[in-house]
């Protein structure tokens, strides 16, 4: 007997989306938004950019739904789109960054921190953000897909369209840079329980 309350699988929802059902887009958004948002956030280290990229990824999902094969898992497509859009955003930003950096530093000196600012300050995120931001972009994307999304090397290679050896190399240097950045001694890493969904 089929349980009518059982949620539809992604492939069925994608088929509905291909037929123009916008509720299907909402369903896919609810299922995958955390993953897309956190991936974009880890790559860009910018909350507002991650929110914009989240929106962009799902609008592209709607736009290109006809080109998606429902019988293949949706996650790799989402990872690829998130990584590509984040990469493009970072590249664009770097063009402006140099000119804006001085102005930003000047404004930061002028700004008075508010109580809300301190309330929103998440220490563990700040630590992660600074460490990720220190990595070169290509290494950062690989590190994020490997450590945050738990993807195997061959799948990262497939998503990014690069050889598995290149993924391993970027992972190796990224890992080494992180260790140096964090001054890693194993006991310093937090034994934090997390609920990552």
């Amino acid at each position, binding site marked *: 007997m089929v349980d009518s309350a059982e949620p539809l699988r992604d492939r069925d929802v994608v088929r509905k989306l291909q037929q123009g059902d916008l509720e299907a887009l909402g369903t896919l958004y609810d299922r995958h938004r955390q993953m897309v948002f956190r991936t974009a956030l880890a790559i860009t280290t910018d909350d507002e950019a991650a*929110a914009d990229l989240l929106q962009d990824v799902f*609008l592209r999902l709607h736009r290109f739904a006809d080109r998606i094969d429902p019988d293949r898992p949706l996650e790799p497509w989402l990872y690829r789109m998130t990584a590509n859009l984040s990469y493009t955003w970072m590249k664009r930003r770097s063009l402006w960054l140099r000119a804006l950096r001085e102005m930003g530093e000047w404004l930061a000196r002028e700004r008075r921190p508010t109580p809300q600012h301190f309330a929103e300050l*998440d220490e563990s995120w700040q630590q992660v953000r600074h460490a990720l931001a220190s990595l070169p972009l290509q290494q950062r994307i690989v590190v994020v897909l490997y450590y945050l999304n738990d993807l195997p090397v061959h799948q990262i290679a497939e998503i990014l369209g690069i050889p598995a050896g290149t993924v391993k190399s970027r992972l190796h240097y990224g890992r080494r840079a992180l260790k140096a950045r964090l001054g890693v001694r194993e006991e310093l890493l937090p034994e*934090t329980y997390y609920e990552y969904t």
Partner: protein
Amino acid sequence: MSDPMDVSFGRWLKSGLNRRRPPEAVRGRVLRAAVSRQVAMDRHSARFYTRWSGRHRGVGFDAWSFGLAAQAAMDWFPGEMTTFRVAY
């Protein structure tokens, strides 16, 4: 390929991102943009202008346009017009 620190790195990265959540407003923005895009796509497709196409897509000849067409027909043929039919 694995490193003794892999588990710790993964845990560290996830715990750092654990409390980061997308703004609630994004969902509405996505769906609104998708709706407007879908309507625009329908109106730009040749299929939209074929007979009965709007009935299945839920994007038909809207009441406002129907009112304009009816008014124009009545203005142009005031005496003769007993019935009129707007093209689909």
